[in-house]
């Protein structure tokens, strides 16, 4: 009697639990896990150069071919270069803004709002604004003397940097908010103690601010890197992967395999590239977990 009614109560609680999880689980299953696993299957098939022909099973050959190809290596190099162009610069600028705004001055709220304002812009808005600013005819940068031939966004040496500049500006607000919150979490008495010990402003920045901020900085680096590896909109809008594939980052290469510009869509190839992208972001995430765990252990 007792055990039966107890079992009934348990069952009722469990079914409520499953019911509440069901919507999310259904979305995840259909739009995350199924597509994720299907990538591996798609990668086994070679897509024909023309639509309506049957796909051909090639097994791991396609993985070997694509992941070992020069174009993948180039795309990976471009993606990594893009991350190196955006992340350190973005964090340095965000930190500069955060430190500048971390003062008790009248009206500082207005400056904080301005510094975080770029979160209101999307990648597309930023890309459209800057592509106009880069334009040799209507743009301001050429007028300021930055007027190379070929023009900035068609220039193999400058295009990636230009896209990176847009990205840094667009993510500046987010970086600022993140680092500001980190700065404000540093206890005031640490600064007071340092000041009593005779530390000047510079010493305090290097000996108190930076070490105390290091977890937040680290988080910003990881989030920024993951963002960088997933960047797509600004490349599509500003350079379209060019010139000469100099801005053909991984996400853009996946996109070009799916859209039929100069050849039939190639889901097989896109799937293999997607797996490559996944492995890299997974690696970044694991590094984050590892480092965070270690930090937690230090704290104890």
């Amino acid at each position, binding site marked *: 009697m007792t055990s039966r009614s107890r079992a009934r109560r348990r069952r009722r*609680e469990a079914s*409520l*639990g*499953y019911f*509440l*999880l069901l*919507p*999310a689980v259904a*979305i*995840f299953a259909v*739009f*995350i*896990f199924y597509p994720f696993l*299907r990538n591996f299957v798609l990668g086994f098939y070679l897509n024909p150069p023309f639509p309506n022909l049957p796909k051909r099973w090639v097994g791991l050959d396609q993985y070997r071919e694509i992941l070992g190809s020069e174009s993948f290596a180039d795309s990976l190099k471009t993606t990594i270069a893009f991350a190196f162009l955006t992340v350190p610069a973005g964090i340095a600028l965000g930190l*500069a*803004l955060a*430190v500048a705004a*971390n003062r*008790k*001055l009248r009206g*500082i709220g207005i*400056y904080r*709002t*301005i*510094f*975080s*304002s*770029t979160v*209101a*812009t*999307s*990648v*597309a*808005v930023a890309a*459209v*604004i800057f592509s106009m600013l880069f334009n040799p*005819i*209507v743009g301001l940068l050429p007028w300021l003397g930055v007027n190379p031939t070929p023009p900035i966004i068609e220039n193999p040496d400058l295009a990636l940097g230009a896209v990176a500049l847009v990205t840094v500006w667009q993510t500046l607000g*987010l970086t600022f*908010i*993140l680092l500001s*919150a*980190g700065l404000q979490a540093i206890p005031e008495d640490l600064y*007071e103690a340092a*000041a009593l010990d005779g530390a000047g402003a510079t010493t305090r920045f290097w000996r108190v601010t930076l070490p105390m901020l290091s*977890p937040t900085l680290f988080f910003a680096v990881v*989030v920024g890197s993951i963002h960088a590896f*997933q960047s797509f*909109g600004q490349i599509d*809008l500003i350079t379209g992967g060019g010139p000469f594939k100099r801005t053909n980052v991984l996400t853009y290469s*996946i*996109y070009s395999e*799916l*859209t039929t510009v100069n050849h039939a869509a190639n889901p097989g190839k*896109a799937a293999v590239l*997607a*797996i490559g992208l*996944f492995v890299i*972001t997974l690696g970044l*995430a694991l590094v984050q977990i590892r480092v965070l765990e270690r930090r937690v252990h230090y704290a104890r």
Partner: protein
Amino acid sequence: MRGEARRWETPGARRLRKIGSYGILTLLAVVVLFPVYITVVNSLLRPIDIASRPPKFFPTDPNWSSYSEAWTDGHMAKYLVNSFIVTIAITVGQVVTAVFAGYAFAFLEFPFKRTLFVTFLATLMVPFEVTVVTNLDTVNALGWYDTYQGLAVPFLATGFGAFLVRQAFLQVPRDLSDAAALDGYGHWKFMTRVAVPLARPAIAALTVFGFLGAWNQYLWPLLATKDDRLRTVQIGLKQLRGTSLDAVNVTFAGAVIAVIPIAIILLLFQKHLVRGLTAGAVKG
């Protein structure tokens, strides 16, 4: 570093330091705001003036027609409506699924709970770009290409949201749920009348965060729609930019139109956004 009082400073030196601070802050503010400012200015200039050298940094004779052109000829009105529909659907969906899942993980016991929770966290490891290949097929197979549901449904649940709300629910003291059980509140009532009100900061953060993410989506709307009537603001901007340089003022106006709604929402909910953005960092 901070504005601590330096008693040994003369009033003059203190004032000088203050002016210096404002100077630096203002300079930085100008640099950050400049692209937005020039966008607004250019949207009010005639195309010929935009190309003039030296450039005009102030619209002496504002030309508002660019906005009406972007609004009607550029279909920005329609795009805005589409963006709002899709964004609101996604935001509401994300909040509801997150509250449901967060409640199950925080307050209920059932077999495979840990496994399911790990599964939710695992979704955070899969970037959306990795899933587009098949999602495009799925949306096509469902007949959802060029539909609102095709744009919204894949994003109705996030592992991040479920995690955020679960953490907030775990802060609700166990005594409260015990007291509610004694007072005769079942799970549904406890969730809606006690747990959700108490987790309001986290839910608000999730709302703003979800709204922002959905509004700014680019890759998926680009892939999953072709019909101009279904395109969102972000893709609309791509279209606008594609028009000739003769209408560059319209492109700038379009960019301003795309930013205004989100800017208003952010100004209203700035505090919640900060909490949402920093939730991951603070937790560690």
